[in-house]
């Protein structure tokens, strides 16, 4: 999916706003705030021209007469997470003059994509205990490592964890953006979830957290499915599920194109 053109984008935003507004309309018996959210698309297709995409998430904070008055404005923290995966972090050391991967640390359940977007710095929204409990910052992300030698430094302290976070941020697979959520009105907000071209495919989930006075008031989730499509899908499925056929097709294709070029460019 590429960047929608401006007029299409406006139409899209209008449609979402209507959807959000109508969803908010039916009155319930809610005493606390309710969070209603919508995403610009819940399916992203990776085709041959895919260069990354942006998911726009909208939401409103619904209150009714019984809702307690809040002296301060609301805060929103959005956590978008891709499928989790095993990641090995390796560190190079010099061995007889050559740089070699010597030490490594395996993490069993690292998210392949993680974007934490908020309307202001996380530390101002809630205290570290709350952030930690809901894993609302990269610093509090729980990375599970296989049990290691008790005497060895723990995976938390030996520098591998920081390296993983740093490298994933460099690839834009991990994002922490304290200005990623924008309030359009005191109750209406918007966020852009950027997906780089190299995002892994799979089921993504965006959890929207509503905070007021440092307390979590409501949560809402949206699923986003990222899939390869067209030729890319065909190639991936064939390569993974029928690797022998895939290999043979690759060879036949190569022989044919080589033979064909030989005929086209024959010089005699």
């Amino acid at each position: 999916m590429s960047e929608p053109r401006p007029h299409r984008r406006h139409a899209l935003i209008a449609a979402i706003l209507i959807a959000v507004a109508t969803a908010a309309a039916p009155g319930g018996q809610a005493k606390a705030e309710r969070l209603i959210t919508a995403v610009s698309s819940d399916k992203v297709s990776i085709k041959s021209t895919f260069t990354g995409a942006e998911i726009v998430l909208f939401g409103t904070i619904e209150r009714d007469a019984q809702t307690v008055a809040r002296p301060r404005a609301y805060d929103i923290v959005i956590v978008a997470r891709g499928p989790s995966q095993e990641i090995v972090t390796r560190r190079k050391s010099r061995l007889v003059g050559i740089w070699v991967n010597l030490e490594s640390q395996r993490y069993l359940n690292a998210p392949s994509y993680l974007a934490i977007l908020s309307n202001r710095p996380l530390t101002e929204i809630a205290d570290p205990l709350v952030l930690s409990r809901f894993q609302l910052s990269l610093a509090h992300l729980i990375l599970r490592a296989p049990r290691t030698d008790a005497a060895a430094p723990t995976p938390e302290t030996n520098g591998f964890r920081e390296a993983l976070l740093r490298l994933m941020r460099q690839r834009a697979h991990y994002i922490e953006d304290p200005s990623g959520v924008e309030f359009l009105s005191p109750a209406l907000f918007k966020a852009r979830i950027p997906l780089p071209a190299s995002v892994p495919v799979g089921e993504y989930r965006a959890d929207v957290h509503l905070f007021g006075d440092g307390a979590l008031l409501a949560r809402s989730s949206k699923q986003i499915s990222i899939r390869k499509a067209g030729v890319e899908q065909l190639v991936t499925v064939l390569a993974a599920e029928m690797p022998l056929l895939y290999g043979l097709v690759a060879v036949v294709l190569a022989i044919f194109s080589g033979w064909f070029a030989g005929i086209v460019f024959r010089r005699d």
Partner: protein
Amino acid sequence: MQIYLPIAELSVNLFLIFGMGGAVGFLSGMFGVGGGFLMTPLLIFTGIPPAVAVGTEASQIVASSVSGAIAHWRRRGIDLRLGMVLLIGGVIGSVAGIWLFRLFRALGQIDLVISLSYVTFLGIVGALMMLESIRAIARAQHGKPPIIRRRGQHIWVHGLPFKMRFKVSGIYVSAIPVIGIGVVVGLLAAIMGVGGGFVMVPALIYILRVPTNVVIGTSLFQVVMITALVTVLHATANQTVDMILAMILMAGGVIGAQFGARAGQKLKGEQLRALLALMVLAVCARLAVTLVATPDELFSLTLERVHR
């Protein structure tokens, strides 16, 4: 224009990859080599994962060698019996190579193994070629005739058992060095993503004393067979053959090769070899620097199994 590569799982500039295919195709057409030893490192420098670069390049070499192999077949420039014995070794070598590739990949050392193999082989072959072409140029300048090898001259290889007669080449030689050369070339193809012509051609000439009119054809026959096998093996064992990437490289490669072949005809043989040697040594040096120089980033990530 960006294009998404489904196996490499990244987006690359179509024209950059096409241009690389064309440039390497030009050089390979000019020098009459497969070009795998240039293409694989170039792909790695562009950010393609080394495992995908090696697996994909094997399929591209099939394409760039097949028309040459057909042409030599028509001219009866292939010693099929010799090619078959070489192929036995090649199959053993490439299966072993794929196994080693998987092992080193699991240990996180495949990038190192690929770089070290390149530095070693390119260093040796480049240095030998350079020496040889400098001597040839010097001889040409002094007006001395080139040294002609005497046929039937004996070296240690001729003392080995299991002798076989290869009629087309007119040689009577033990099967052991023939299979041995096949094994080495198979290993190189599987681990380095090269055709192995740069090892095969000198080995056939200097060790087996195969006459030059069948060397290139027999070598090309072997290269096509082995890289085809390596492509299938990488696809099944490692799933690292990116067909989209291969097609772009093939398109660039075949076009570049046509212009290269024309340019090559304007240069003298020994000058060509000296230029090729220079290029081989340059790639070798570039890779050696990355092995020795302190990297900016000591850490690296390997993304493994995705829990879907």
